[in-house]
């Protein structure tokens, strides 16, 4: 028996979500095609042919060689204008031992009584949408021929093995399916490594500070971060690489991968995909171009970052040149008065692991106008600015993390940009971790210049305090 997974069909409703192709859209945090491949594996099929369309690369990257499912994968590109039936007929010789076909977003929803062994008793079955087949199961050539020609096959084949055919024909049925899964059905599909005692499932590397309020049933995937006092669940599916800021509530919702959810938001009965908020009831989509609300998490490094760093390198050079003479005049006086001196302390470094940075340490607890002036002019940052010019630090960014004191914090930062100036320079109340995550998300030339200007001004006005 051969399986043909057709990922090339056009699916209008999935376009509203943006991002991944419909075959990779998550259902309870697993791509749809993963369920298809799992069924192929359950049926002990050997060969699976994947038909690729416009989003071929993403699909191919995900499925790869199929070894994860113990399957052999062949790829074929769908021809423009060729109907699925025509394609299947053109490879008739290949399915002499039977055919399993998936096309269009089709999900086999398992009922409570479903058993994998039951698939062995599945009768020839065909489900169609607008005359095109979306699911075919036939054990022999004749059966498959009959189904493709439109001859009567079983239309309740899946029902007889305690499964329900679920054609995801619009955004509402997609949302509805996810909510059904998170409400408890996902336990029928769980694979090793998931715990479902209280109908909740939490992936790896999920950071949940003590005040977060997680209420089952929920599904939370890897690398999620919740700020304090965040309420998640019931009935929330939160996918990979999602950051949820403080005091937000996620209830009856589906949050797709790489999404940032801002502070104090109430995501209730919505699908959030990056910067898109979608109402599953009527399919209304809004793209929010406002990173304080919802946004797509920033990728690791982009061309914009390179431009930003280049411009800021020149800004750093200018600041170094301005500070050069004041530093060489005032610092010797500070050293002679034995009030403070630079000491090399170990910090984390994104490239080399560790770096020893010169940090001004006060030696005597006395008030000194000289020391105040030194700090007010931010001359204590001069050696660090020189390191920026040498390409070892960023001008603005996250606060450099100490080693070993901040080892735990550095593990929670997917992106680490140690900067000479950071939010803490002008906001002493700031939470280092939250601000670091926020910076990684919002970083831009404007943000860096804002941090620089506010830090220099704030330090000057505080007069070194």
């Amino acid at each position, binding site marked *: 028996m051969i399986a043909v997974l057709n990922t090339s069909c056009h699916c209008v409703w999935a376009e509203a979500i943006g991002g991944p192709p419909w075959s990779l859209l998550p259902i309870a945090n697993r791509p749809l095609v993963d369920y298809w491949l799992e069924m192929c594996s359950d049926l002990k099929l050997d060969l699976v042919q994947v038909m690729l369309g416009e989003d071929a690369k993403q699909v191919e990257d995900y499925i790869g060689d199929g070894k994860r499912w113990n399957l052999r994968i062949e790829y074929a590109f769908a021809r423009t204008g060729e109907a699925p039936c025509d394609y299947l007929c053109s490879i008739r010789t290949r399915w002499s031992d039977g055919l399993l076909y998936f096309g269009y977003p089709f999900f086999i929803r398992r009922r409570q009584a479903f058993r994998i062994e039951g698939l062995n008793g599945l009768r020839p079955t065909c489900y169609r949408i607008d005359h095109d087949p979306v699911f075919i199961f036939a054990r022999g050539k004749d059966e498959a021929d009959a189904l493709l020609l439109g001859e009567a096959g079983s239309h309740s084949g899946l029902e007889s093995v305690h499964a329900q055919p679920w054609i995801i024909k619009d955004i509402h049925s997609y949302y509805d399916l996810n909510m059904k899964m998170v409400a408890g059905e996902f336990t029928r599909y769980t694979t090793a490594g998931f715990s479902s005692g209280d109908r909740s499932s939490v992936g790896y590397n999920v950071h949940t500070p003590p005040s977060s309020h997680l209420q089952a049933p929920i599904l939370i995937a890897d690398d999620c971060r919740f700020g304090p006092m965040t309420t998640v669940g019931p009935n929330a599916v939160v996918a990979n690489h999602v950051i949820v800021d403080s005091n937000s509530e996620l209830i009856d919702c589906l949050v797709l991968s790489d999404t940032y959810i*801002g502070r*104090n*938001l*109430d*995501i*209730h009965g*919505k699908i959030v995909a990056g910067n898109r*908020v979608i*109402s599953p009831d*009527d399919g*209304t989509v*809004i793209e*929010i*171009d*406002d990173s*304080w*609300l*919802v946004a797509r998490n920033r990728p690791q490094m982009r061309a914009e970052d390179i431009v930003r760093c280049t411009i800021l390198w020149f800004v750093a050079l200018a600041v170094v040149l301005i500070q050069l003479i004041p530093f060489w005049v005032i610092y010797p006086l500070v050293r002679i008065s034995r009030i403070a001196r630079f000491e090399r302390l170990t910090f984390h470094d994104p490239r080399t692991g560790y770096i020893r940075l010169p940090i001004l340490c006060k030696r005597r607890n006395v008030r000194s106008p000289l020391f105040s002036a030194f700090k007010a002019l931010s001359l204590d940052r001069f050696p660090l600015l020189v390191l920026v010019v040498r390409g070892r630090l960023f001008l603005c960014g996250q606060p450099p993390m100490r080693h070993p004191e901040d080892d735990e914090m550095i593990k929670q930062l997917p992106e680490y940009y140690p900067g000479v100036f950071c939010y803490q320079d002008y906001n002493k109340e700031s939470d280092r971790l939250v601000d670091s995550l926020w910076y990684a998300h919002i970083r831009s030339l404007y943000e860096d210049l804002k941090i620089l200007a506010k830090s220099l001004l704030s330090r000057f006005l505080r007069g070194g305090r």
Partner: protein
Amino acid sequence: MIDCTKQDGIGVVRVGGAMTAATVDSFREQLADWQEREPEVKNFVVDLESVDFMDSAGLGTLIAALKRISERGGDMKIACLQKKPRMVFEITRAHKVFEIYNSTEDAVRAFA
């Protein structure tokens, strides 16, 4: 950006276009000008029928306006909120701060 009229002693503010960081300054200034010209008007209805998008700056401006009007002993209601701005109101919980009506007439009547 805005068109202010008086209806039964209530200030009706009709807003056009998107309410974003780029447009809120104009909204704020025009509303403040009109409030200065009509100091006896305490209560306001903001008609958002023509507003197709709103961001956090737009919301912040509406909340600031509500605060300012409340300080003067008045109230502000929202009318004709469209689908997309309504979703922003929902996710930011702003719909719990404002009284929202389907039409300007309903909002004006609510002051009676």
